[in-house]
């Protein structure tokens, strides 16, 4: 069953001669327990697509559903709640709060309301252990390695037990070995917890590890195949 459903979604920026069609009539489903790698050159629209799914942008046309709910026209507060409770973001590069420890970076989501803080503390410790971060849990973010920071980001994205994970270039600043560790940790969490996940990547080797590969060019889906087919 699809957790994320995009139906004929388009997104344009600017008007008239300056109009740019970043995403054009994209239809895409992402199922529970599935990691979809979104591949394409810079400017192809993959990050815009991720932002649309995360309610960071509103589509110009089309419909977006998450767990069956139409989020297309959510207003300000509904968008904030949606991002807080139902989506987990992992951004490119360093996206930790630099003066907080690894554990505090996970617990910060509890300050945004709508959660039992005691349960969040237990969950933070559980996630830190699962992602092999217990040893560095009390280190401030700036003292963590790139791989540790990305694993903390994955843990933070899972803190509210969202149904959808949106991951933007998680290995861009890592070497191959660290990148594999981070992506494998992500795959393991998605499969084990039955989440849906879109992972934007430039790296073919990382994309091959996903369950499905979606290739995007000039805002349109060029190819959509399982990673098994590409082998």
């Amino acid at each position, binding site marked *: 069953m699809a957790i994320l459903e995009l139906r004929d979604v388009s997104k344009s920026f600017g008007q008239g001669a300056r109009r740019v069609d970043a995403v054009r009539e994209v239809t895409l489903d992402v199922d529970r327990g599935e990691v979809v790698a979104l591949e394409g050159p810079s400017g192809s629209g993959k*990050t815009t697509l*991720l*932002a649309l799914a*995360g309610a*960071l*942008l509103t589509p110009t046309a089309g419909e977006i559903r998450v767990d069956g709910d139409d989020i297309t026209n959510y207003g300000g*507060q509904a968008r*904030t*709640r949606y*991002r*807080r*409770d139902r989506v987990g*973001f992992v*951004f*490119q*590069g360093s*996206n930790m*709060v*630099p*003066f*907080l420890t690894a554990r*505090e970076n996970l617990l*910060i*989501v509890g*300050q*945004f*309301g709508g959660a039992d803080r005691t349960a969040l503390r237990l969950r933070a410790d559980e996630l830190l252990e699962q992602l092999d971060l217990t040893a560095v849990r009390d280190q*401030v973010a700036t003292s963590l390695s790139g791989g540790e920071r990305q694993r903390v980001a994955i843990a*933070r*994205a899972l803190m*509210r037990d969202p149904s959808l994970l949106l991951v*933007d270039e998680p290995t861009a600043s890592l070497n191959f070995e660290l990148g594999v560790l981070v992506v494998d940790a992500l795959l393991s969490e998605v499969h084990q917890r039955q989440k849906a996940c879109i992972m934007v990547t430039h790296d073919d080797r990382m994309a091959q590890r996903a369950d499905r590969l979606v290739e995007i060019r000039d805002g349109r889906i060029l190819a959509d195949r399982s990673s098994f087919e590409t082998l």
Partner: protein
Amino acid sequence: MLALVEIRRRKLQFGFVTGVVGLIAYLIIMVTGLGLGLYEAAGTALLRLNGDHLAYAANSNLSVIRSRLSDADVAQVQALPGVERASPIGYVAAVIEYAPEESDTAAIIGVIPGAFSEPEVVEGRPIGGPADILIDRSWVRVAGTRIGDTLALPVGFQTREFTVVGIVDQGYFFFQPAMFVDIASWQDLVFQGDAMEEPAASLVLIQGRDLDGVRGEGWRIVTKQDGFNNIEGVQAQQSTVDALRYMGLLIGAMVIGVFFYVITLQKVSLLGILKAIGAPGPYLVGQGLLQVLVVCVVGAALAVALAILTEATVLASDTIPIDFTTSAMTTSSVSVVIAGVVGSLLSARQVASIDPIIAMQQQ
């Protein structure tokens, strides 16, 4: 609390701005204290007189120095309906030599011995004769004069000796310590025995009701506060002090505003990420304002501590007219906190307007 954790982990950055806010608050407290001190020195002796209205000569433009009232004027004022009690008082400045080669000016105020206009004596006894004088504590601190000492006041080309019989707590008049003598002695000091020109008083101190604005042929009545406000230089002096205070608050607001604006600009991407992962805008604005409040409150507390220390050390000699009162310190501190919050509103607006899409653009 994200805001408090950041302050704790970035001590140098926030310590620096707290110090700057503290110095600005200290400056404002000092200026406020100076304003109060100057206000007191301008004429607390007038304000502390035991009456609520004053009668001036009509042509004096409410100047104590120029006001001269005759016996007839005083009698008319005393007979007015609404006047419960009225007593003439005189004023003149005199240079007093209190030690060889040591002299200072004092405000000599003539009162009728035993009348309600004679101030309460805190040490010694009231005026009992024409050669008795009451001196203010501030003179005691400056000159070291004691009860029983004699002071030589100039009368024409001669001096007349007065014996200190009591100490009062009336403060200053025209920035000079107040001294009180028999009004007859005051007349001698002012007119040097020329009986033809002797006026009865400079002013009439009145206790009564509904007298503000009442006028006679040669006199007019105002409230004691209006009389004080018309002391030469008081208004200009207070306006100057107020301008300094407002300037200090403006500078404080700008310093805090710029600091937090720069901090906000440095954190735009971080704030964008926090919004993207579900932090509500009001939560982030609230955290920013909490930091401003902490910085301003701690800065103001430091300033108060510094002011108390200054009062206990540098100002202990009482030569600088600065008066720190609890209310002045509280008002100044609260003003600094308000100015800080107002100054940070630009940052709050900036935080509120950050688009979370910025989180996706951290290439």
